[in-house]
């Protein structure tokens, strides 16, 4: 090899390294622009991808450009950039990801036929968690009504349903869940509808739907078994709740009747109730401290403690007023009344804990031990 040839090879190698360094720097600059939210970053990456000769950074540049273009809703541009990754890629993982992204885009947009709808769908879903969801949900409703054949139309229905449920519009949510479920019997959308029915307390409806499709071949049995367990728990708890409300109602009527009898008239009974008994004066500051301490921790626990404290004070108040109405209460009467007061407090405690599914937290603590906080 002549000296000239060696020098030429060395020159080419040095030039190649210099180009790689330049590409490295250009990639780094474009990445910094992307992190800063600069919309021009995608152009910078595409320019680097298109620059020749090809360097190690070429496929990476196209890959980043595609990701940013997709994020911006420019799906056709993303598709073109991904094809560049596949054509020029030297990193097999990068190429695999590009193929996966193309497959995902094809599935979501029907090979490009629904690009505009897909971009609008994703834009609206991204807005759902920010600000007032109602107008966004209505736009999503319009979108799915106008494009019922959009490949992800049923997923839009589910997004609408969960959006309305989060917005406490249960009726509208269930209607959308049901519409989505009808198109996927036994599968995910149907299971989501069942879960929503259980959450909404429409247990008979959920039971009926499960019975209808329990043995259908298309039914996802493992997931249905989970829903079934949740339904059984909800049914049991509903019975317990109804029973305890009944107990509280009976005790309230009994207390009113006994107080009226011992006080001599309704007016006198009301007067006795208006004056807090001695035990309430002791209990209220303790309850207030408990509630205040609870509010520094878990909000679910705080709400339950507040309800239990209020119920405890009410029971003590009524019970105290009843005892005050009797000149010399017998020990048997005092014991019986204390026992009934305990039953009332226990019932109120269960109802407070059952509210907002806090009972799940209690059961988890029972099974797994107290969580460190």
């Amino acid at each position, binding site marked *: 090899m002549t000296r000239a040839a060696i020098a030429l090879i060395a020159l080419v190698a040095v030039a190649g390294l210099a180009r790689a360094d330049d590409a*490295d720097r250009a*990639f*780094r600059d474009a*990445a*910094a622009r*992307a*992190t800063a939210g600069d919309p021009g970053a995608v152009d910078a990456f595409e320019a680097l991808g298109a620059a020749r000769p090809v360097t*190690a*950074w070429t496929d*990476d540049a196209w*890959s980043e450009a595609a*990701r940013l273009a997709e*994020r911006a809703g420019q799906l056709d541009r993303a598709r073109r950039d991904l094809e560049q990754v596949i054509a020029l890629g030297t*990193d*097999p*993982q*990068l190429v*695999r*990801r590009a193929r*996966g*992204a193309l*497959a*995902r885009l094809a599935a*979501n947009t029907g090979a490009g036929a629904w690009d505009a709808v897909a971009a609008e*769908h*994703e834009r609206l*879903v*991204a*807005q759902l*968690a*920010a600000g007032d969801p109602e107008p966004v949900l209505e736009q999503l409703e319009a979108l799915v009504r106008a494009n019922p054949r959009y490949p*992800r139309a049923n*997923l839009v229905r*589910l*997004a609408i349903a*969960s959006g309305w449920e*989060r917005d406490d519009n249960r009726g509208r949510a269930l209607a959308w869940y049901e519409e989505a479920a009808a198109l996927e019997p036994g*599968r*995910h959308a149907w*299971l989501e509808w069942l*879960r929503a029915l259980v959450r909404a307390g429409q247990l008979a409806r959920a039971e009926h739907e499960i019975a209808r499709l329990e043995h259908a071949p298309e039914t*996802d049995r*493992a*997931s249905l078994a*989970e829903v079934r367990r*949740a339904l059984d728990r909800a049914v049991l708890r509903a019975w317990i709740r109804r029973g305890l409300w009944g107990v509280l109602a009976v005790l309230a009527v009994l207390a009113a009747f006994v107080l009226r009898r011992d006080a001599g008239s309704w007016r006198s009974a009301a007067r006795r109730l208006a004056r807090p008994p001695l035990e309430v004066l002791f209990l209220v500051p303790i309850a207030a401290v408990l509630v205040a301490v609870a509010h520094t*921790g*878990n*909000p*679910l626990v705080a709400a339950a403690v507040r309800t239990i404290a209020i119920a405890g004070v009410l029971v003590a108040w009524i019970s105290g007023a009843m005892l005050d109405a009797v000149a010399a209460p017998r020990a048997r009467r005092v014991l019986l009344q204390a026992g009934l007061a305990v039953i009332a407090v226990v019932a109120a405690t269960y109802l407070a804990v059952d509210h907002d599914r806090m009972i799940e*937290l209690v059961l*988890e603590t029972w*099974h*797994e031990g107290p*969580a*460190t*906080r």
Partner: protein
Amino acid sequence: MRAAVLLFVIAACGASDQPPEFTDTGGTLAIEGCGYSITTRLGAEPPRVASDLAGSDPTPRLVHLGLVGDPRTSIVAQWRTVDEVTRSSEIRYAVGEGLSASELDQTATGIEFGYQSTGADIFRMHQAHLCNLTAGTTYSYMVGSPGHFSPVYTFHTAPDVVAHPDAEIVLGFVGDSRGGFDVWEQLVTQLVQRAPDVMLFSGDAVTIGITQPEWDEFLGRGEALFTSVPVVLTNGNHENNAVNYYAQFAMPGDQENFGFDYGFAHLTVANDTPEDPAALTGANADALRADFEASKAARWKLLMHHQPMWSAGTRHGSNLTLRDSWGPIVDAYHLDLVLNGHEHHYEVSKPLSNGAVQTATDNATVYVVAGGAGADLYDNGVGFWTQYSEKTHSAATIRVRRDSLVLESFHPDGTPIATGFSKTKL
């Protein structure tokens, strides 16, 4: 003479390859050629090199990959068989993608051990440890035993970032699938399309860790992902250190507190629900500090554990014990990202350091809660640290390059969640 023949036959039967009886003492086995050992726990047998014994149906199932050694040069394939009796265990593999079974020209013998949790059933794990692989390379493989192999799958080794400074790695991230396996399956489909290099699972895959059918559901629905992407998990309060959890997932070190490099990232995994609660602020905090110290030169530093130090979720909220004990260590070593589950919602924090929100991400840590892989959702909340929170099922990808880290999250239907996190280091 007939008596002698009979004696010979009896003696021959006695000397045959009868498997040893199940013992649940656990044990350790050095893996030849890999430079590490595998240790099983109480409730599992000591691991053994596979024998030739085949059961009535040795068909492999629930194939999934794991990491124990250097991910550039090693990987672990794990599976069970239909009969749970077969002890024959083998992997066939070759460099290349989409190869046919006949093209897999390299073979390695696996190891196996049984484990038992509830009831009398014994579940038998098979592991094949491949070491001395080539970095940044795609391999095809199948597992099983002669005549009963799985389909051919592929895996990919971690890149050598010195040779390839342009390398990008993608970490999949999610947690809390328990009880919602149809949602988990949807997320798996989305994750497969994003082709992560490693799957990070932040705990609570199942409701009760010792219940094997739940694990089978989790692995079965994740098969499309786990056959080609190694999974790294952390123990959640629902796994609760069950023998099933440690038996099914080969991971580095003691499987509880460990760290490893993958591309430009260093990932530390910590157990925040140890069997001995005192370890939380003692041994586990020390292990955390030791791993951070050993990896302090890493370009990007991530920590995964189950219970969040920072969460505005209404169910559990922030774990203040962890925040007091682990928070200062995280701050001292300037971690970039902390990944959690436990709260069934999605939340990204603002950059935090020493308990205060920072204006810049430099030397500050962002905490991500993505506990929405299928479990019933909890109400989200907003704390002073909250950048974004949403009551939703979700998963995320973390793309790590030399100079940038990008967290992107998505719903089970694939629609992106508006707020992720990105950071550059120039």
